């Protein structure tokens, strides 16, 4: 059964597991970051199964990934769109960030030296490391319909 309510899709499967989909599209500009962070929080807070820690991790991961799209993905062009989609299953959250800028491929970074003095640490590199540390699975694909970065986070109440 599918119900359409306030732009959200509710799909009730035969196993009676709820599936919720939320989507927002914004311009790839820094002013959009707070909107996207708030969107993640507001979407997740509707479901008591998702802990505050999980919401926080998702917000930070989305913030880092979208900052990267804004900074690198649309570099040198009038910025296009970022589509942020959250799919909430009973046991996991799937976040998909789609853009149409330059394709990139994140590779797993080495662990940064957290013991080093702040002034001795290289600039950058923490964002992707953080995402790899906090998300359970990361997928990236680029094809005809855009660049898709997918995070999967298991739900911990």
């Amino acid at each position: 059964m599918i119900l359409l309510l306030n732009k959200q899709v509710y799909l009730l499967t035969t196993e009676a597991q709820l599936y919720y989909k939320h989507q927002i599209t914004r311009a790839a500009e820094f002013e959009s970051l707070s909107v996207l962070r708030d969107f993640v929080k507001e979407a997740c807070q509707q479901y008591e199964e998702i802990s505050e820690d999980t919401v926080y991790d998702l917000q930070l991961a989305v913030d880092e990934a979208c900052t990267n799209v804004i900074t690198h993905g649309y570099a040198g062009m009038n910025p296009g769109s970022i589509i942020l989609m959250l799919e909430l299953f009973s046991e996991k959250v799937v976040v998909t960030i789609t853009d149409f800028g330059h394709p990139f491929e994140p590779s797993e970074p080495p662990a940064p030296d957290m013991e080093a003095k702040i002034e001795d640490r290289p600039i950058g590199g923490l964002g992707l490391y953080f995402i790899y540390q906090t998300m359970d699975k990361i997928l990236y694909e680029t094809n005809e319909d855009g660049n898709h970065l997918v995070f999967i986070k298991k739900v911990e109440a």
Partner: protein
Amino acid sequence: MFKYLRLKSQPDKVVTYPGSLGIDWLSRDSQLPITLKHINALPEKIKRRIYRNLLPPDILSRFGVHPITWNGSDREARVRLRAEAGEGVVHLWAWASNDPNDEFFRLEIADNAYDGIDIHMLLLNDPNSPRFRTDYDEDGNPTLFGTARRNLAEEERAMEAGLAPAQIRGSLGGSKSVFKQVDAFLATLGHQAYFLEPLTYASAWVFERRGFAYVRGHKLMDDIHSEFQPGGRLNRALDDSTPFRQAEQWRSVRGRAWAIQDGILDAIGARWDHLRMVKQVGRYAGVETFPGATY
């Protein structure tokens, strides 16, 4: 910010096989996309059968055009297809009568540099509405939809009649049907998306409502909306200096579009060019750069 990533200088090709289209190839993975150039290499009757799927039957039937034969009730041909072998471009025209001025549908789609799909042209005209010669200047030269030259007197008449820039007649109002048809057609070919460059602010707004997102220009559209608000630079530039810059035009999509056609973006150091939009097949992006807009 990410540090460890690899940027590609350009996208990969969407279609990755050489050669011609045949049963052998079609028997392979059904998800592999096909170019228009491959279809255009097929015999004429096969092409016609395939490209028939680009024409919404409901729009054809509004003008008595049979969706299979492409003939009118007088058995005269009302649709023309041009899909030349060796080219990756398809043109479709449809007329309500034998009068070439009664064209109500025109679609041009093409393979792009990456073997994806671009829509070059989509016209949906109501042939029963008054025609305005905004497509020719006062010396009879083509204006290229107002992009190369302008016919100011005709544009003013068209604006007063409720048209948007680049329109020569009132709209047929069938873009929803067309994009539904294009989505289905391209899904059949195995394409996941298609692209276009909106000619005007009004057309970009329409494409947003049809589910398109922006490859380039989303921020420009946001900036335009912001600057048209009271106190913004575009709002202040609506100074009645021309018929296309009247004070209340910021309130509507068409009003803004005519002011932009008149060059008002100079006020924010921008130009209406290089915008590019993308439609993901079967998906709706939900972009709304002019919330609560009045057309």
